[in-house]
């Protein structure tokens, strides 16, 4: 399954270079009305990997963090499911091959 950005999702990525107040991470807001959600650390990485279209989000996060992909997979997949339920990511492809 691959994921992408919902059309109605505003997002601002804040890195250490462009923010001095310690609020590094990702700010997300479904439009209009919100609420605004702040993802930090691993949560931000998972969201970024998901909307980047990674087919295996847990492996992508493991590559970035040096963690064992199988060890973190339940947590990562659970968090992606929650992001999906909140419409903070959307499904681009469910992984089944398109009919001929």
């Amino acid at each position, binding site marked *: 399954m691959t994921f992408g950005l919902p059309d109605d*999702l505003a997002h601002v990525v804040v890195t250490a270079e462009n923010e001095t107040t310690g609020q590094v991470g990702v700010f997300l*807001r479904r439009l209009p009305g919100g609420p*605004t959600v702040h993802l930090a650390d691993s949560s931000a990485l998972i969201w970024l990997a998901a909307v980047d279209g990674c087919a295996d989000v847990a492996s992508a*996060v493991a590559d970035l963090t*040096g963690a064992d992909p199988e060890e*973190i997979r339940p947590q990562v997949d659970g968090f992606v499911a*929650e992001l999906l339920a909140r419409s903070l990511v959307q499904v681009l492809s469910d992984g089944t091959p398109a009919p001929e």
Partner: protein
Amino acid sequence: MVPKVTVQPLEPSGPFIPTNVLVELTHAEIQVIAAAGALDVLHIKGPALDPQLRSDRATSMDVDILIRPRHLPALQALLRDHGWHCLFDFRDGSTFEHAATWARADMSQVDVHRYFPGFEADAEVAFERLWRDRREHRLAGIGCQVPSLDAQRLILLLHAARGHDERALADRDRAWVDLEAADRERVDRLAVQVGASVALGAVTGRRELLHGARTADLWTLLTSTGTTDAPLRVWWTWVRAEPTFAAAVRRGIHLLRPNRRRLATWLEHEPTRADMLRAYLSQGRRAAVAARTFIRSRASGRRSG
């Protein structure tokens, strides 16, 4: 050390969101609200500016948009539907009465411009001219409509015309002083089309563009001393810049009358009758002198004309 992977509960962000983030999210929010109503909005200033016009040092504290004038009532209704309220209406704001400030608890304030000070063409005509050359600029990932680079330069210059700080000077440099001749010519042509040649002439120090113009004194005043000096002179210059006698009277009265909403903000409570009376009296002497000058001038003008 291997970072631990932990996820957080998905809860609304706390009260502190960096200002630059909040401003970007607000631009996006307004764009989506306007688009839902098929309303034409141009995002101006701050992060909506082309990178070559942006200041590295200054962070916008609020959002500025320009609405197609005939779409204004619909935008106001939509904003209310989405939990926004009007903090300061057009008459509560600057003497130009060009922008109203809207607010919502979890967003930056938004200045909704119905025209831009310095544009003397019909507001619908001027907006359409800017809209024709609009471009898309992504803010918080959402496609927002912004004026062309030349129109951004013009707007920045006209805004800088009313400022006298370092930021205004830097804006003038980026939007005019540093330009090649061909770029300046395009900005000049656009200024003619939106009726902004007088203001542009004043801010770029080209007096010949002001010659004989009704608003020449006003823009000379605004670009030279600002509006905080010599209140009577400012009042008189504003009144004389109006195109009709009725508009001049309205402007003259408006400039002298204490503004209830501004007073409430300053006092931090709704002004009482006594508060309003004190405010009236504090301006009374200035009002009397100014009104007498104005009336005498009109009388002598009629006698000589």
